[in-house]
């Protein structure tokens, strides 16, 4: 009888198992994908490729180095904030969570994140060790709320082999990229006629984030102040119309692949289905690795560049970054210390993470030869200065991104007029922000 | 073991509808009483009230000298056999019979003894380990009776227990029930709408009609001296023919009634002075008629249907005025449909019913 009554408690206790062998367990929740099958057991970080492979092996390595600490990893669907919200609401959030800088204000402003100043200080990590861009992104009201892990932007990943075929290569062996809107359409047409393939490989299906990022970039290039007031978006201007018109024209003139969702777009580019993939920094490592193998579409023909400047006003590109946060909750000192060790380990291995293609956040990694000698990094170096985020005071950036992406998508695919889409997007976003 | 049952001033109402109205009945210890009546007359309700399955609005019920209408069904000491038998489908015959005894914690060897005894009496020993689903209708019926017997109740209650059996089996079981009653000597109450069952089984029959007891009596009393037109028409097969009375003439032996244009019938019935002649009828059973030669007194009957039963022949016909009459002839009758025959009526056997349905009989026994 007693057994029966204790049943459920016992089961959950056993599951945690930390109690049994006196180890400290850190529950770590992240996106970046699941690749247990390939990397589940390996601790050889340097052999790993791609976001998932590198973070998985990093954690494995940390566990191997610290036998008294178990890291229990939960992989969530990107970006995983609905799940985190449910967890926070039920006071069962994990110990460490991956989070975009752009999402942090939401949680920090409601006191849902633990400040990490002391934890980092105990590990000998100083704020000045990080790039200004990174540390300022995670600092709110004078306190640091995340271990900044990377900065990223959208890029033009180029298939040089196809560009060569379209006669779009410069003498120095780099591809010819457009420097204006007119050039974009001209070169796109040229590419398409020569190869029979679309010029751009874009993620346009079942995705909202890429639409929003490109749109932000185009707005920022016009030096638009669409978030002059963080509680209010302004999409009524000519700038918004110009940005969206450009996005729509790309589709209308058949410059881009259609109907591809994220995985389809990623593999389509890898299989040579188009000239330029518009996607994030995180793919550099994987595509570069592929280009070093023989007999595939990218063999010996991959390069990568920032998104070109399509508007004269400003050379800018939308940027964000990933950090590691600790949600509020009751944690013992031992556990906090273990989390500190994990953060120190991640900090120490920021270089390994930067092999994905992300920009490192640690100054000395950027300065290191090791990093500088990574391929393509010099080609995209300027994003460190041109990268720009939304104002920190803008809350619910992921919800905004969803709304914006949905409406932009409607316009791009021709289901709504441009004016209609922008108007609805503005209404919905402002309704959201006004009712927080 | 067995006991008498007293029903006193029982009334049953559902909201404003009265189902039983002031019923009084005393059943002797060991008596076999049959409640007979058309469906809806309240006979089953009365039985279920004795069992405790229906509540009583007014009145009381005693078994022996003990008032039992406040007790739950299980503690009244009665056993019931249902029309559908109501065997527990998931229990074997043995478990079905033992279940009630186990409920009251009878010792296991006593249970075994009683079950085996009952099974022997009912000749179902070989069925003890079967479940009801694998028994025939007749076998289920026996098990249901067996389940009642093992309880050694003060009274047995039967709720139309034979109606689900085929005709042949019904006849046999009827006989066996009569034997069982003799053998056990228990008080038994039997509800039926079948007059043959009632006539053959009952010590006394209780005829129920319109929420009331119409008549209580031995089968012969009921048959020969029905107190009312209802009882007369309900009991007997074929039913009693009813001829409207036009005129009544007092004679030395009784009254002679004139039946429309068809003729008159002499009877040995004496009517009281306050007799209500309006809508009065004379009732004649088929067996009290005879086909006679055309010279003799009688009524002329035009035969429409001839029903040959072997030992006798029933003649369904109409009188000149169109009234229906059923007459009886011998088994060797040569009457054919379409013929007109003369029918005589025994003067002592006729019954006269006044406008209120109240019966008047000849004082002489036939």
């Amino acid at each position: 009888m007693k057994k029966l009554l204790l049943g459920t408690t016992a089961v959950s206790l056993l599951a945690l198992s930390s109690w049994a062998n006196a180890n400290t367990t850190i529950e770590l929740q992240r996106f970046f994908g699941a690749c247990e099958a390939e990397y589940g057991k390996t601790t050889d970080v340097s052999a790993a490729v791609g976001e998932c492979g590198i973070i998985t092996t990093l954690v494995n390595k940390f566990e191997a180095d610290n036998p008294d600490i178990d890291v229990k990893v939960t992989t969530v669907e990107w970006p995983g904030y609905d799940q985190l919200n449910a967890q926070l609401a039920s006071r069962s959030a994990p110990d460490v969570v991956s989070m975009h800088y752009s999402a942090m204000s939401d949680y920090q402003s409601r006191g849902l994140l633990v400040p990490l100043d002391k934890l980092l200080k105990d590990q000998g990590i100083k704020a000045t060790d990080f790039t200004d861009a990174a540390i300022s992104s995670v600092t709110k009201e004078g306190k640091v709320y995340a271990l900044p892990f990377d900065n990223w932007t959208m890029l033009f990943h180029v298939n040089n082999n196809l560009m060569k075929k379209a006669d779009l290569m410069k003498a120095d062996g780099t591809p010819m990229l457009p420097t204006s809107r007119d050039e974009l359409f001209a070169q796109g047409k040229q590419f398409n006629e020569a190869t029979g393939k679309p010029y751009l490989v874009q993620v346009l299906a079942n995705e909202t984030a890429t639409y929003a990022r490109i749109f932000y970039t185009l707005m920022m290039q016009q030096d638009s102040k669409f978030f002059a007031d963080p509680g209010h978006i302004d999409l009524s201007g000519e700038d918004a119309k110009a940005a969206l018109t450009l996005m729509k024209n790309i589709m209308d003139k058949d410059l881009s692949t259609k109907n591809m969702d994220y995985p389809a777009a990623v593999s389509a580019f890898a299989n040579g289905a188009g000239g330029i993939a518009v996607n994030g920094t995180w793919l550099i490592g994987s595509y570069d690795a592929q280009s070093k193998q023989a007999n595939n579409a990218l063999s010996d023909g991959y390069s990568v560049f920032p998104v070109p400047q399509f508007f004269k006003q400003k050379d800018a590109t939308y940027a964000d970054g990933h950090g590691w946060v600790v949600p509020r909750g009751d944690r013992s000192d031992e556990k906090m210390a273990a989390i500190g060790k994990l953060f120190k380990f991640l900090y120490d291995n920021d270089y390994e993470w930067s092999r994905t293609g992300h920009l490192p956040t640690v100054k000395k990694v950027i300065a290191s030869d090791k990093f500088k000698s990574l391929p393509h990094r010099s080609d995209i170096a300027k994003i460190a200065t041109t990268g720009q985020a939304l104002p920190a005071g803008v809350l619910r950036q992921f919800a905004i991104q969803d709304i914006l992406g949905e409406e932009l998508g409607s316009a791009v695919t021709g289901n709504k007029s441009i004016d209609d889409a922008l108007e609805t997007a503005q209404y919905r976003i402002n309704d959201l922000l006004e009712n927080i | 073991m067995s006991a008498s049952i007293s029903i006193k001033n029982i009334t049953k109402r559902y909201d404003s509808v009265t189902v039983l109205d002031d019923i009084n009945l005393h059943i002797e210890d060991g008596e076999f009483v049959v409640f007979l009546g058309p469906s809806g007359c309240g006979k089953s309700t009365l039985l279920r009230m004795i069992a405790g399955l229906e509540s009583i609005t007014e009145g009381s019920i005693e078994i022996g000298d003990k008032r039992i209408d406040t007790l739950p069904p299980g503690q009244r000491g009665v056993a019931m056999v249902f029309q559908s038998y109501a065997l527990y489908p998931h229990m074997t015959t043995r478990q079905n019979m033992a279940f009630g005894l186990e409920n009251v914690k009878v010792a296991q060897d006593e249970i075994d003894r009683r079950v085996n005894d009952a099974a022997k009496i009912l000749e179902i020993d070989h069925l003890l380990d079967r479940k009801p689903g694998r028994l025939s209708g007749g076998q289920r019926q026996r098990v249901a009776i067996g389940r009642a017997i093992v309880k050694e109740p003060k009274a047995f209650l039967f709720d139309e227990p034979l109606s689900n059996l085929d005709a042949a089996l019904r006849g046999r079981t009827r006989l066996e029930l009569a034997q069982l009653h003799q053998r056990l000597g228990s008080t038994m109450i039997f509800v039926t709408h079948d007059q043959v069952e009632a006539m053959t089984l009952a010590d006394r029959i209780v005829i129920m009609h319109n929420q009331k007891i119409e008549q209580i009596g031995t089968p012969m009393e009921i048959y020969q001296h029905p107190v009312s037109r209802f009882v007369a028409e309900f009991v007997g097969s074929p039913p009693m023919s009813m001829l409207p009375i036009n005129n009544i003439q007092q004679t030395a032996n009784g009254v002679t009634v004139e039946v429309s244009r068809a003729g008159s019938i002499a009877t040995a019935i004496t009517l009281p002075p306050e007799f209500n002649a309006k809508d009065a009828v004379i009732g004649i059973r088929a067996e009290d008629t005879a086909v006679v030669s055309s010279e003799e007194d009688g009524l002329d009957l035009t035969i429409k249907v001839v029903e040959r039963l072997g030992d006798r022949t029933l003649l369904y016909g109409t009188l000149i005025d169109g009234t229906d009459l059923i007459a009886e002839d011998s088994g060797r009758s040569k009457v054919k449909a379409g013929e007109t025959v003369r029918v005589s009526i025994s003067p002592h056997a006729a019954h006269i019913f006044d406008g209120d349905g109240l019966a008047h009989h000849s004082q002489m026994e036939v």
Partner: protein
Amino acid sequence: MAESYRRSRWTNGLFVVPYLSVFLTLLVFPLGWGIWLSLNKVDLFGGERFIGLKNYARVLSDPIFGQAVKNTLIFVGVSVPTLVILGLFLALALNKTTKGSSFLRGLFFASSILSVTIVTLIWRIVFIPNDGLMALIFNYFGWQPIGFLSTTGWSLFSVGVATVWWCIGLPMMLFLAALQQIPKDLYEAAALDNASRWRVLTRITLPSIKSTIMLVAIIQVVMQFQLFGQAQLMTNGGPAGSSRPIVMYIYEIGFLRWDIGMGAAASQILFLIILCAAMLQYWVSTRKEETDA
């Protein structure tokens, strides 16, 4: 007063106490609490403030909610008749005792036991561009590929295909059971009357299972109004919200936008819609029967 077993006793009520306590705490109370929440400005992490019907006003004036309602109505309007007619067809075709029929019955019902995530996983891998089964088929025949999950119009259709594939078993089974209940002598009488197959179907079979058809329709309407998992996992409501059902709207408002109050308001509206749809159906069916009688 005489007492008998029919007499009402409060101890008899003890039998319903376990269920009633669960019913009250987990259904009735949350229903009331949900209504209360819908009248408040409240987010996932607290902060209740009474604002009256403002949440309802916001939901009803939200074009996205309107779109979700429209999507859901279209989905119900197409998927339910499909399920009923297809289920009826299968039941008629497989109402035999042969081995082949019983195998097919088992096959058509088998998908019902799979969980929604498996079903959507299967159908996503069928519909994905380039690598999916449909893409291969279209490629083989040289047809223009269709973005089943990413084109307005097709996305809701694709969700519907997966749903019908998943749900067809139950209607078929219910119809089969109803067909078995039709007395055999009706058909014998029809055969003696020289009735054609079609007349037997329309004059005997269908009228005999009329109540089952209604039952299946009501069950399916209530079920399909609650569409969520398929849409969320296959299309995430896209593109441009063209496959977002009401339930997904509620989920997004509550757990993506933290707005519990507004989510609760949308829930109550959905509740009303389902109630009205079921009652309308019931009303139509009973009214029809009256005129038939």
